[in-house]
């Protein structure tokens, strides 16, 4: 897990919990099952290594709460 995170960079998928209203759109739309809802009904990253940066979550988040970073080369 730690290894996978570091390969992606820890801030690659950033979720502003304060803005997340828990609609679960990001979870439903992610083709790689990277996201899940946590106990507080907020989106959270559970499978970061699977992220293919399609940005579906980012562009469909109605609350501007998700940002996918640009992968460093």
């Amino acid at each position, binding site marked *: 897990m730690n290894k996978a995170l570091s390969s992606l960079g820890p801030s690659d998928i950033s979720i502003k919990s304060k803005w997340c*209203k828990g*609609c679960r*759109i990001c979870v439903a739309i992610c083709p790689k099952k990277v996201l899940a809802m946590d106990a507080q009904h907020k989106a959270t990253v559970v499978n970061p290594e699977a992220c293919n940066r399609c940005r579906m979550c*980012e562009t*469909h988040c*109605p*609350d*501007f709460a998700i940002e996918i970073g640009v992968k460093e080369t």
Partner: protein
Amino acid sequence: MQEHLETYLRMERLPHIWCPGCGNGIVLGSLVKAIHELGYDQDKTVIVSGIGCSSRAAGYMDFNTLHTTHGRALAFATGVKLAKPELKVFVLMGDGDATAIGGNHFIHAARRNMDMTAIIFNNNIYGMTGGQYSPLTPEDRRATTAPYGTIERNFDLAELAKAAGATYVARSTTYHNSLLTRLMVAAARHKGFSVVEAITACPVAYGRRNKLGDGADMLLAQKENAVTVKQAESMGKDELAGKIVIGELYQAEAPEYTELYQQIIQRAQARASKGCN
């Protein structure tokens, strides 16, 4: 996206007021991206809106923003644009706002072909007041004011716009928001009155009552129900029932109002100077 938000939104006003799963934020995001692509000067761009959930979008945008009265956004926008044609004007409205109380303004704005872009957030319901049916609520749907189902036929917004004289008409959904952004860009670049219908989910006041699931379910349903203009061409009427046709639906050339008025000014001034001599 985040840097666009910081440039174009009044960040201190966020998070916005919209309910969990409401698609209005997605439409707002598309508009922000479209304006960025258009490269419009924020100082020279005016965002006009009516009254309703979607019309609150104007307040979050770092532009000259004008949140007007219910249904009247296009009439206010007409004053802004005619007074200062150099300003870029976007008009954000909801479905009830634009086609019920604002229906008259809508058809006449289309007829005049003044250069502005109307973006209608179509969530099929009056959301702000808690779920009353609108002219864009499909038949046989439940609303607080249609507890036994709607019996009124709904408008097809795009057909209405086209028939009234709009010279650019397009439709997309919040699911297809990259397309939505592209259509907004094309609409704004089009000279004349352009209309973009954005299909957006209202899970709280519409979806729940009609057993359409939550915001995520409604968003995915847009994906299922959408057909492109091209696909639609080869589909029959029955096949198209319940489908959402997305893409550029209509485009035409017609003289633009403020340019025509500029000619009126030249004509009047020429006549007046002749009269003096």
